[in-house]
């Protein structure tokens, strides 16, 4: 009987969102192959693990060791490698979270197997290479490729499959405790603490309205008008890489491939040309309003609404109008 192993990260006793997506993806692969679906969790408690039954998991391998109290990338990789070595898996599937990606890469490096990151679809076959599609350039470009390996290793690109909802009435998964063999050398790099500083990154990622500025703002000072518009709209401020490279704004506000991904109801992009590396960070925005002097700028092709004009005149006028309307209402 063939089997698929999915790496799951638990938060408050349930799989985190990206893990729930990976479970859905892995479930589809297992079904196509007629394979069992196993999960591996490093650390954590057995009761919560049994709950993965609702996600279609038959057996959860709970890799535990008293040396796994705080996250250590290589040790997590070793724990998963132990589970993989003891079974016979066609593939190991993980989410594309920082941690899951890192753990899978450690597994790949230890075992010398290839690994494909940010996979959007796979055509599983029992023997030989799988045809897969994966993201390049953070999703601005797709690659059709073949992936082989024993087992095949892949991470699932975020938000290409829905997060799985647990089926009500499904029985619990079998929980199999596995002693993780962790060496001193696996623990050389590890978490020693946490610095809790609520940065503004989270609010940018979650904001309902984002006001963004780029090179067209012309100066650091000009961003004051964006702060003001954001203030009256209850919006977060985001920027292009040019604005951060020039030191106008901190990198925590950068939207794009090497910045934050936003998903607001409205993104107001001011003086931003729409380079693919910027737009890829805003592709989950429901609507984009562009304010730009150049109607030929690529961003117009991504815009829902557009105002052709100079940000320095248009933005203050919008702020004033919002104030007027709010005052009247």
């Amino acid at each position, binding site marked *: 009987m063939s089997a698929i192993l999915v790496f799951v990260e638990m938060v408050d006793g349930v799989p985190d969102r990206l893990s729930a997506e990976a479970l859905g993806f892995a479930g589809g692969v297992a079904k196509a192959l007629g394979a069992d679906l196993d999960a591996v969790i490093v650390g954590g408690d057995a009761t919560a693990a049994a709950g993965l039954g609702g996600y279609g998991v038959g057996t959860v391998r709970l890799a535990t060791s008293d040396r796994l109290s705080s996250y250590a990338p290589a040790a997590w990789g070793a724990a998963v490698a132990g589970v993989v070595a003891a079974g016979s898996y066609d593939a190991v599937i993980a989410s594309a979270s920082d941690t899951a990606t890192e753990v899978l890469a450690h597994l790949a490096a230890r075992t010398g197997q*290839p690994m494909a990151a940010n996979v959007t679809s796979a055509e599983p076959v029992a023997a030989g290479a799988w045809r897969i599609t994966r993201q390049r*350039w953070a999703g601005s470009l*797709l690659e059709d490729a073949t992936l082989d390996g024993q087992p095949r290793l892949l991470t699932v690109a975020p938000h290409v499959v829905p997060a799985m909802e647990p089926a009500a009435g499904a029985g619990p998964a079998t929980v199999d405790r596995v002693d993780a063999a962790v060496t001193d050398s696996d623990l050389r790099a590890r978490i020693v603490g946490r610095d809790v500083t*609520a940065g503004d990154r989270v609010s940018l990622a979650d904001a309902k309205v984002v006001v963004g500025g780029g090179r067209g703002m012309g100066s650091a000072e000009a961003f004051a008008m964006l702060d003001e518009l954001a203030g009256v709209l209850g919006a977060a401020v985001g920027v292009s890489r040019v604005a951060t490279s020039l030191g106008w704004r901190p990198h925590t506000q950068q939207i794009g491939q090497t910045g934050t991904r936003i998903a607001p109801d409205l993104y107001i992009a001011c003086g931003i040309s729409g380079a693919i590396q910027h737009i890829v960070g805003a592709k989950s925005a429901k609507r984009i309003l562009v304010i730009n002097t150049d109607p030929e700028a*690529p961003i117009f*092709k991504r815009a829902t609404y557009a105002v*052709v004009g100079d940000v320095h005149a248009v933005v203050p006028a919008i702020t004033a109008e919002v104030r007027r309307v709010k005052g009247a209402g």
Partner: protein
Amino acid sequence: MRILVLVKRVPATGGRITLTDDGRAIDTRFLGFVVSPHEECAVEEAVRLIEANGGESVVMTLGPAEAADQLRDALAIGVDRAVLLETDGSDWDPLATATALTEAVRRLEDADGPFDLILVGNESADSGGFQVGIRLAVALDRPVVTGIKALEIRDGMATARRQVSGGFDIYELPLPAVVGVREGINLPRYPSVPGRLRAKKKEVETSTPDRPGNGGPVLDSLKLPVEQEAQAEILGSGPEAAPRVVEVMREIGVL
């Protein structure tokens, strides 16, 4: 202190990507080339650490002969030496890349002593494999952490911070180590004119690695994601558009 930084030459695609006729590569005829912003930050971090601690920094890439340009960009902001592992420009998979880089690191270390720190980008800009740094570290038996937004080196230890929701996780790892950095760890400087001139004169140490067998994933073809190209509704031009803009905001319920 000795630091090695690894960078990868990629095309600076602007508003849209055009593919070659065979669909296997980006048409780069009209494009400039850069390295990933993460790697630019890794280069800046290396220069700052050497400025603070003394020693030598080395930048290395595996890529076509033209990748010497990206090495010179790093020399221009203060990296001491540049090493090019020259290929025919075809796509090397992450396993092959890491194998060639590992061999080169061993060779450099045999000649001039170990690197205390190897800095890589969190992921390459183009292929985004998220693995070359980890494969290299495992092959060299060194600790590694990725996704790093702040780094401190003291008494043979690296303290590194990774952003998580609500703050930073703090990692510790003993040197020698490999660290994968993210843009935002610093603000890279612009090269000075004397820096550029100096870089132009420096030698790029070039060798040609053997290509290991294909590990995969094996690239078959590229394609652009299907995007609905929107036909933007023009709300007006200049400040006179403001009332219509605000009306739309009310219609869509953000006001």
